[in-house]
């Protein structure tokens, strides 16, 4: 009896090794299962919510598995998009608006960020107030801006007694009204990012430039702006993506022709139930956004090299 106990209590070392191995493996599997169970409701939901619409979009653009689709592989949707001036002009119009908004908001935001670096009375109040548009949705931004600069807006009313006719920004074929609203909405986030990066520039770098004889303007253009370029390109990316895809603003105040890409896309499937062409336009929009993302990463990699030389 006693000898039997002895055998059971101390198994052979080889068996123990094997046992530890399976136990570790079982533990690892248990951990993996728990991780999966935790991730499925949130990350899993988002994964599904990305894969399904994007997959549907790409398939439908090639005439597969879409509502009212051909049912076999075809490039008809792309041919229809490329050959129709309605669509090509929409792409060009959205691109123009996005580029103009991005460049203008960078110029305005960099200048404002520079002014906000100065020490003047009331600076904290300005610093708090300019952040208002960050939490205002774009539809309300459109309303707020139009009450000021739109037809019958406050600016037009103030100028009227002096005989000055304020240009109507509504349905303007150049897209000026859209750009003004987009600027109001996007300049604050640009200021926020650019001034955060500017604040991180080490003071000795600027002092050194000053000591070596650079004037304030030269310091700004040759030292501060280049060192801010990671922030500037990140802000540019955000603004471009927002301006290129915006729907609410151009659908309300955009011209009848050309229309923004998003407006054309939406009316394709909402009004005409042509999901195929809408999907092809969507793929074009993703490709454009992807190209800008790639450009951003290239710029980021380059500026990392540059700032490595300074730090």
């Amino acid at each position, binding site marked *: 009896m006693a000898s039997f106990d002895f055998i059971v209590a101390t198994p052979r070392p080889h068996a123990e090794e094997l046992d530890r191995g399976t136990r570790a493996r079982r533990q690892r599997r248990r951990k993996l299962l728990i991780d999966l169970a935790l991730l499925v409701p949130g990350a899993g939901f988002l994964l599904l919510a990305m894969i399904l619409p994007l997959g549907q979009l790409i398939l439908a653009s090639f005439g597969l598995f879409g509502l009212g689709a051909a049912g076999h592989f075809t490039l008809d949707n792309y041919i229809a998009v490329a050959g129709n001036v309605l669509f090509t002009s929409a792409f060009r119009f959205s691109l123009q608006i996005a580029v103009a908004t991005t460049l203008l908001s960078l110029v305005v935001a960099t200048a404002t960020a520079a002014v906000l670096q100065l020490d003047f009375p009331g600076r904290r109040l300005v610093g708090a107030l300019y952040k208002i548009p960050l939490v205002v949705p774009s539809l309300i931004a459109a309303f707020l801006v139009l009450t*000021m600069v739109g037809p019958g807006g406050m600016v037009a009313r103030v100028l009227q007694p002096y005989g000055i006719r304020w240009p109507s920004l509504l349905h303007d074929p150049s897209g000026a009204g859209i750009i003004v609203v987009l600027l109001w909405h996007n300049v604050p986030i640009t200021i926020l990012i650019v001034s955060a990066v500017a604040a991180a520039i080490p003071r000795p770098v600027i002092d050194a430039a000053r000591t070596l004889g650079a004037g304030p303007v030269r310091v700004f253009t040759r030292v501060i702006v280049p060192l801010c370029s990671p922030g500037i390109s990140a802000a540019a990316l955000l603004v471009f993506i927002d301006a290129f895809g915006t729907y609410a603003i151009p659908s309300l105040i955009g011209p009848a022709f050309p229309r923004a890409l998003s407006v054309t896309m939406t009316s394709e499937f909402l009004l005409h139930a042509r999901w195929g062409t809408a999907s092809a336009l969507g793929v074009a929009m993703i490709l454009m956004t992807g190209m800008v993302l790639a450009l951003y990463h290239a710029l980021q990699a380059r500026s990392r090299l540059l700032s490595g030389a300074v730090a």
Partner: protein
Amino acid sequence: MNGLWFIRSPRLRWLIAALVLSATLVVFVFPMVVAVLWSLVDPAVGWFPPHIVPASLSLANWQALFAVPELSQAFVTSFIVAVLVTLLSLALGFPTSYALARRDLKHRRLIELLVLLPLTLPSVVLATGLGSIFIRLGLAQTLLGVVLAQCIVVMPFTIRILTATLSGVPQDLIDAARNLGAAPISVARCVLLPMVLPGLFAGALLAFVGSLEEFLLSFVVGMPKIETLPMLLWAYLGGRSSIQTYAAVVSLVLLIPTLAMLFVAERVLKQEHLAAGFGKG
């Protein structure tokens, strides 16, 4: 960089202050005042140019919020959807945040990127794909469809906030509680929960406001059966027929929770919870 390295004259400083302050007021504060005025315009008199201030004020447009069926209905729908989106995005997002913040994940970076992906995709593209899938699944023009669609764009924010909060809880405290004999359940209830409550609150607020303001996905998925306040605002701003006074009322109804959120965020919460949610990308 503490400014004033090229401006020394005090008179110039005051000039800059006056210019910047008045520009800020005109660009960012004045439109809010005009919006309030528009919401108070007396519909019997109107507010036509060249009047700088409305000739007579009334609360008629605010009463319309309850008297006009489509307004009151959209009001109720918007708030029901917002509550559901808040609850759902917290319930679905919390486990993922917990895993991201406190568990040793193999592909953490990849999962974090995946969670942020919906924010980089133009929402009109998402709407196009989602629109036809929801029609196929029978979710188009249903409350559930709108709630699910909004969760896609709201949840990245809640997950980010909750992850930031959960990773801020010191492991020592949990170890100490366990060491002193607390069961996992009571550790969760008495240690973890009180510490993440501000973050949960911040996440809930952000989800609520995000849902209240979401327009395009709800528009594509819900139209015309489910109508939320932003969809009505779009209609009043000229999407259907222009009604400036109602547009003002709806704008303000949507802005009040947002501004309240900012105020609460400043006062009650630690800045970083909201900063984690606001910082895009």
